[in-house]
């Protein structure tokens, strides 16, 4: 058994670790290296959704209701893809409007209304307080179980000063104050807190998986074994979907959790306020459901394992997660599991408290101070320094109240039931939020009455019964209904039966809520301010870049007043910075003007909203500016202008894009032309150079012949050279012109049918003398039937001659000429020589014109340097191709000629007649 001292040491040690993580992340964020700003941390921090309720309660619920516990996770997973539509919009709105909580969001949407913000805050507080209290309960219970195992002393009866849970609550309050309220700006991100929460999410996941693996694979023999054992004890109904479990129940529970994951204050805090980049949603959209999947894998095995092991029913199913490792005396695992549960509870408490404290200070206390003229004049100028203290005090108050609530009420209820009650409370905000961002007509009155009615029903059908159970109200209310009217019995309104009490409450509260919201919205008139906000919220993606000019406001503000107001809350340094940023962005010189224009007033109001909430900010700004009432027409007119400006801007952008495209294209064309020009230049200079060589010889020898009195033999020899060089020049000129015609496409071939065999033999014959002179062996292998091909006879002969002539220059002992007919309707002609071959790296260029002249790495052969380039052109003009490769120690130049099918047949026919 673990000693109390050890458990306490580990508990506070764990808290100390959280402090360390938060502290070091904040330090590093200050130095500019942010660990929290990435999608993975973001997704993990969203897992604050999984509280002690998940950790202990899922198993408890699974042990009684089977697979139904999954609905709480199916909803969020189903809704995750919708985040792209809903969450992204909410994030964008909140960022541009400086919104820091759900209450602020609703109040802001409906004309920055104080009443609405206050009501939402109050209901949030009422809805979430029990939820926080059950986290304390979970920690306290797990602590007790650890100490006393299966016979827990009722911790509830201990006075608070002996209660460890009390000190833990105080410790958490300190942590929250330290890392959650550093800045007066509620919209500021809390790097340290986010990192600590992300760490806790990871920790609870690992701890839960650890105990799951332990139960499944060490206590039992895998999933199959557990299910078989459970089946033996008639527990099938827990893991088999059965018809009577009711699709209605599944549907409503999934819907409930969808709304919860979007709008629970702690989820709003993590997903919206702490979001540093909208793009993080992309990854979180699948990472978060993955997290939910992982943490639920072992719920059923643990539940079944617990039911099988503690079959006498003495152990509360909510505690199976802990009781199992204790029963098997695994001390360290027990400790890990306990800390996992602790982490689930603490992260929820920390984040919820921060969110609630923001709402309480910004939407409840500050507005109250500002609405009352007496209080306003008293506190107005000191509010700046007080905001943060109001928030800190709220944190302590919330946590202490939650502790009291735990002691007095929630000790008697299961974790899940209280959790679900909170969910239903939060669900009441859904109509006014979703309506608010998609429906421009949704009005303040509709939202207000919808929420109030929904809450009334929630309170009556869910909270009143718990008060009755706790013994503060008579039992008769449940059985006979209020004032004895049976149609309003808390668990069966209008006589509705057959639903679970949660579904029942959700159904009625949400229906009435939506009904009132829609009907009152349709019949009530929006004020111009409210309508302005409605347009900006619904069309946020149209306005977000021009926000300051799209919030319509008419009037004048004395700049020093505005500045003093901001300074009051931000301090001198940050105020100067904010003004400098504005001047920078708008291009206005603020030191030269005395009166602020509407844009600047909006800018200041937005900054102030982040600190004291939008409704309070409006009041504060209103006290320093002279405002004129503005008509609906003016609002619409100004908004239209903003939009037109934006679309004009868009058109301009489009035009400049097109221009850039055109200029890119021009540049590209220019480049191609320049390249062609360079190639042409290069070609001409090579041709000139090649021509100068024979001319040089001709001139030199002519001069020698002119001056000298030479012997006849020399004379003859020199004259012979002159003629030879003249021929060389003629050939060069012919070939250059030839190539030029091919290049420009002006070359015409005179195609005619010709006998391939005869043509090849003729070409070969004219080379016989050359081979003989050089002492080279010459083989001819023609391996095809008589064949007539349509071609330019002289040109093909030219190609063969060129290849044979090249071969004769490089061959050592022999040259081979091969030709055969190939199946793919082509004649293959090859010239092989046993010379040393073409170096590999030159193969790609060997058919380029003047390749040899430009790359003299070997001894220069005699020739113009254009032969292969021309041969290639000729072959390609005939529809064939030419290659060079090495084959059996010989260099092989090979080219193909297409053979037309009909001609082939004809030639066969003519063969028969011969």
């Amino acid at each position, binding site marked *: 058994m673990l000693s109390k001292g050890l458990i306490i040491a580990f508990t506070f040690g764990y808290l100390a670790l959280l402090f360390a993580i938060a502290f070091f992340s904040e330090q590093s964020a200050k130095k500019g290296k942010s660990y929290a700003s990435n999608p993975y941390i973001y997704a993990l921090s969203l897992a604050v959704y999984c509280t002690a309720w998940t950790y202990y309660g899922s198993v408890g619920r699974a042990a009684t209701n089977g697979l139904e516990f999954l609905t709480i996770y199916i909803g969020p997973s189903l809704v995750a893809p919708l985040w792209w539509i809903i969450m992204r919009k909410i994030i964008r709105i909140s960022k541009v409007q400086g919104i820091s909580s759900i209450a602020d969001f609703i109040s802001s949407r409906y004309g920055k209304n104080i009443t609405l913000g206050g009501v939402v805050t109050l209901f949030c507080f009422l809805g979430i307080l029990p939820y926080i209290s059950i986290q304390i309960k979970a920690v306290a219970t797990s602590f007790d179980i650890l100490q006393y195992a299966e016979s827990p002393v009722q911790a509830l009866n201990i006075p608070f000063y002996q209660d460890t849970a009390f000190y833990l609550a105080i410790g958490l309050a300190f942590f929250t104050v330290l890392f959650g309220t550093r800045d007066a700006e509620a919209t500021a991100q809390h790097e340290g807190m986010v990192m600590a929460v992300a760490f806790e999410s990871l920790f609870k996941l690992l701890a839960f998986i650890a105990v799951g693996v332990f139960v499944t694979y060490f206590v039992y023999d895998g999933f199959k074994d557990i299910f078989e054992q459970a089946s033996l004890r008639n527990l099938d109904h827990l893991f088999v979907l059965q018809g009577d479990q009711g699709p209605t129940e599944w549907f409503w529970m999934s819907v409930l959790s969808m709304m919860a994951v979007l709008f629970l204050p702690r989820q709003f805090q993590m997903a919206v306020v702490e979001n540093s980049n909208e793009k993080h949603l992309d990854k979180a959209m699948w990472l978060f459901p993955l997290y939910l999947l992982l943490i639920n894998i072992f719920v059923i095995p643990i539940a079944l394992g617990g039911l099988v092991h503690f079959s006498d029913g003495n152990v509360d199913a909510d505690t199976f997660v802990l009781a199992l490792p204790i029963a098997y005396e695994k001390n360290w695992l027990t400790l890990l599991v306990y800390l996992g549960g602790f982490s689930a509870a603490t992260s929820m408490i920390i984040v919820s408290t921060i969110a609630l404290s923001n709402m309480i200070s910004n939407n409840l206390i500050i507005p109250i101070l500002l609405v009352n003229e007496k209080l306003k004049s008293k506190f107005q100028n000191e509010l700046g320094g007080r905001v943060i203290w109001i928030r800190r005090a709220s944190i302590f108050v919330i946590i202490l109240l939650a502790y009291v609530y735990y002691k007095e009420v929630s000790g008697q209820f299961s974790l899940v039931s209280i959790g679900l009650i909170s969910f239903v409370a939060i669900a009441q905000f859904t109509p006014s939020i979703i309506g608010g961002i998609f429906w421009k007509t949704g009005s303040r009155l509709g939202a207000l009455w919808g929420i109030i009615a929904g809450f009334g029903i929630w309170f009556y059908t869910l909270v009143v019964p718990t008060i009755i159970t706790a013994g503060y109200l008579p039992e008769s209310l449940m059985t006979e209904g209020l004032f004895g009217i049976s149609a309003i019995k808390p668990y069966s309104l209008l006589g509705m039966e057959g639903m679970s009490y949660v579904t029942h409450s959700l159904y009625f509260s949400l229906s009435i809520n939506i009904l009132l919201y829609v009907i009152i919205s349709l019949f009530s008139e929006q004020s111009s301010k409210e309508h302005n906000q409605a347009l900006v919220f619904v069309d946020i993606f149209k306005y977000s870049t021009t926000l300051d000019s799209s919030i319509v406001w008419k009037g004048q503000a004395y700049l020093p007043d505005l500045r003093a107001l901001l300074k009051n809350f931000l301090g001198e340094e940050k105020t100067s910075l904010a003004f400098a940023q504005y001047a920078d962005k708008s291009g206005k010189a603020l030191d030269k003007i005395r009166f602020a224009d509407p844009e600047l007033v909006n800018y200041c109001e937005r900054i102030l909203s982040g600190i004291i909430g939008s409704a309070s900010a409006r009041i504060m700004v209103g006290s320093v500016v002279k405002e004129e009432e503005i008509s609906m027409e003016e609002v619409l007119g100004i908004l239209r202008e903003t939009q037109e400006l934006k679309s004009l801007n868009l058109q301009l952008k489009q035009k400049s894009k097109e221009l850039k495209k055109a200029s890119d294209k021009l540049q590209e064309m220019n480049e191609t032309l320049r390249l062609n020009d360079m190639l042409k230049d290069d070609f001409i200079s090579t041709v000139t150079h090649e021509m100068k060589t024979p001319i*040089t010889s*001709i*001139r*030199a020898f002519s001069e020698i012949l002119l001056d000298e009195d030479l012997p006849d033999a020399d004379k003859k020899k020199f004259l012979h050279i002159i003629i030879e*060089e003249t021929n060389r020049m003629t050939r060069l000129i012919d070939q250059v012109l030839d190539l030029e015609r091919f290049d420009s496409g002006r070359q015409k071939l005179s195609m005619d049918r010709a006998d391939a065999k005869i043509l090849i033999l003729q070409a070969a014959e004219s080379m016989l003398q050359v081979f003989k002179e050089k002492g080279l062996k010459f083989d001819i292998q023609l391996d095809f039937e008589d064949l007539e091909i349509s071609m330019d006879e002289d040109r093909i002969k030219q190609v063969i001659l060129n290849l044979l002539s090249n071969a004769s220059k490089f061959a050592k002992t022999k040259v081979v000429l091969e030709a055969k007919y190939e199946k793919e309707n082509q004649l293959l002609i090859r010239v092989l020589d046993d010379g040393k071959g073409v170096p590999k790296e030159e193969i790609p260029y060997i058919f380029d014109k003047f390749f040899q*002249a430009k790359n*003299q790495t070997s*001894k220069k052969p005699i020739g113009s340097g254009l032969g292969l380039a021309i041969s290639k052109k000729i072959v390609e003009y005939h529809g064939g191709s030419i290659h060079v490769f090495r084959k059996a120690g010989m260099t092989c130049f090979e080219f193909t000629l297409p053979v037309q099918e009909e001609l082939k047949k004809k030639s066969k026919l003519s063969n028969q007649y011969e």
Partner: protein
Amino acid sequence: MNKILIVDDEPNILLSLEFLFKKEGYKVFIARDGEEALGIIEEMDPELVILDVMMPKVDGYEVCRHLKSRHLATKVIFLTAKSKQQEVQKGLNLGADLYLTKPFSTKDLVQKVKILMN
């Protein structure tokens, strides 16, 4: 007797130059590429070298660079078809004594060689 080395990869140009300078009474060596030329320079130490630029293996520029670093007294004449301004400049920068372009006048060439050799 003054020794001249003629380097060119065109057999007919070699033939004509060899004939010319032999008749003028020089002792003439010929080389068909830069590598061969470098060998002869080491072995025979000619007073004057007539150099083509575009040659296999080692080009004329390379030969000239080598000459001007090792055999300071040896005169160098570039005789090449390359006639662009920057090519001429490059040759002269390498320390060549003369840069003549092809086609050339035989009389002129002989004249200039004579001047250089004195």
